[in-house]
């Protein structure tokens, strides 16, 4: 048995009625996990692009990929674990800013550090938009916790393979400046 790992699976599907439930139904029917999922139309409006974050050992992931390919409406499936890739997620976060004096300034500082954006404010709250990889998202949530997070809405992760980075198996990925920057920021 190989170890259980996280995988990002990119699925190109026909942009048709019911496709999402076919894909989601396959995961539930076969007992595969979906940790996050995002769907949107592709550049060509006749297709949709899905990114599914899942986990499993090599054997399970091989079956996931094959079963997805078997769905008639699925055009292409890529397991990004075979590539070096970047993943991002966007969060909308509403935090309290009036529990203690200075909270509003603290919130503002965190926004700066993480290059988040304030998209709405009220006398007692700020609402941020922040985009980043998993580490950055985890970090900002940790920083904001003491203020009191009222609500978090997440898009789910999307991922893209790096240009010319087709790697055979488990080769270490070359650090990408942009990726590392956001990662090490705080």
């Amino acid at each position, binding site marked *: 048995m190989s170890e259980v790992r996280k995988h990002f699976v990119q699925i190109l599907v026909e942009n048709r009625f*019911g496709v999402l*439930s076919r894909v989601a*139904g396959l995961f539930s*029917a076969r007992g595969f996990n979906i940790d996050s999922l995002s769907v949107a139309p592709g550049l060509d409006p006749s297709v949709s692009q899905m990114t599914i974050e899942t986990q499993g050992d090599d054997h399970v992931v091989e079956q996931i990929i*094959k079963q997805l390919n*078997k769905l*008639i409406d699925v*055009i292409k499936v890529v397991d990004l674990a075979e590539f070096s890739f970047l993943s991002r997620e966007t969060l909308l976060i509403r935090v309290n800013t009036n529990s203690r004096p200075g909270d509003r300034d603290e919130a503002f500082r965190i926004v700066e550090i993480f290059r988040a954006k304030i998209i709405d404010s009220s006398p007692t709250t700020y609402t941020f938009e922040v985009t980043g990889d998993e580490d950055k998202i985890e970090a900002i949530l940790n920083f904001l916790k003491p203020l009191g997070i009222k609500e978090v809405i997440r898009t789910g992760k999307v991922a893209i393979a790096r240009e010319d980075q087709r790697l055979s198996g488990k080769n270490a990925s070359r650090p990408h400046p942009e990726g590392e920057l956001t990662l090490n920021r705080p």
Partner: protein
Amino acid sequence: MKISGAEMLLESLKREKITHIFGYPGGVVLPIFDALYKDPSLQVILTRHEQAAVHAAEGYARSSNTVGVVLVTSGPGATNTLTGLADANMDSVPLVVITGQVPTKMIGNDAFQEADIIGMSRSCTKHNFLVRKISDLPRIIKEAFYIARTGRPGPVLIDFPKDIILEKAEFHYPETVSIRSYNPTIQGNRWQIRKAAQAILKSRKPVIYAGGGIISSNAHKELLELVNLANIPTTLTLMGLGALPGDHPRFMGMLGMHGTYAANMAIHHTDVLIAVGVRFDDRVTGKIAEFSPNSKVIHIDIDPTSIRKNFHVDVPIVGDARVILKDLIEELREISGGEDAFRHFQPWVAQTSEWEKEHPLKYAYDKEIIKPQYVIEKIYQFTQGDCIVSTDVGQHQMWTAQFFKFIRPNTWLTSGGLGTMGYGFPAAIGAQKAHPGKRVISITGEGSFLMNVQELATVVSLDLPVKIVILNNQYLGMVRQWQEFFYGSRYSSSFIGQSPDFVKLAEAFGAVGLRATRPEQVEDTILDGFSRRGPVLMEFQVDPEENVFPMVPAGGSNIEMIFESPGEKDDPKKRDSILTA
């Protein structure tokens, strides 16, 4: 000229060379039935239940290697097809099932006889379509047939709303299909085929394990050629019976839970396992960790998900079994330089023959009580195998698989994957429709038969000469056997002695009923029943406590076969293993 959706459907079916539709009418599909009334070139076989219509279409399809077509109404008509769809999906049977649907504007409103059949059937069809525009209809039908019969075959459902059934439009049937997201692989990879040929040539103890994929791909000639060329001992799955003639000297019988000693021993000791069109089902492998432990595995299958789903594979070859076997035979001829190259299999062949002699399939004939196996043997002798046989699910199914020799493909109809009681009799009806001149026999149990008994009305009204053989053991026998072995003989809900009088039942429907209660009546009953023209039901009252042997207790290793009742009365360890009856 503009025609209605209903007429388009019929035109399209004719373009697909369809001649028979199994179905049942109702509200929203009345316009289609009305169009059928006016069009004698499509024959409707009215079953008495929609589930039976699907099984009949399965029997039709499997016995003739074509696509079976079903037409039913919305709501309950559609939901009644689900068991049949799941059955066809498991056993890879090509079907196109058309369900009526409430008008497009009413979908989702809990309209009268609305059911979300698209949602419900998603996981038990190969694909399904909701027709949303009349202009899509011809393409959808074309694609449905293409998807059903190509690649790994399976059922496709088309949900057809009433407003579109009625709407009129110009009709253009597409000549060709191209689905960018669906392109089954046909040709096997040359390099992999070479590797397979080399492995076979180098092996000392090869075994062929072939199944339903041989039947689907029509590869029986190629399989026979391979077996003959290299003299390789061969076993077939339940779904593969008939893929190699049952009387071929290298045929070791079925493998698996109720397989033969020789087949299971050979699989256990082989060094190169040549798996073709099989899916390593748990009834075949038993305890997977101990299945074929020392072999290099070659697996030929058109469906990549079958490969490495349950079992490791060393040489996977994705593609059509027939095409790949042809190439493999050619490759073997080329690199071996003649049949002498396979001489070194001789000791192995001798070993497998030895195993066959050690534990042949057997039962104890009895003068006082009819043994079910005896009835099957006698039917085989009487027909010489020149017939189509269907079964239901249970002990009678296993005995038929063991004691009837299937000589040709497409003559054996059984529900393997889902194990659907109630499959057999309607499947025989479908087969009889496809082969009007052929003898079609439905071998069933008194339990299973009652699950689609209403179809007696179908055979009588259509005067179909199906011969029904009920092996009445007064029990849900397969369940009783498990209760005997693993539940301390506590026959909870498995005794069904209060069956109807089957002879009278047949007569009530207008068929002939015959009964045999003693061994000496068996041959006469068969002779009498089979020489009559129309539908005949023959009830054989057989030994209630006969068991199916050999048996690999569920979850056990395949070489732990038992040949008699284990006698350990209550065995939670065995009974609570992952598999159930």
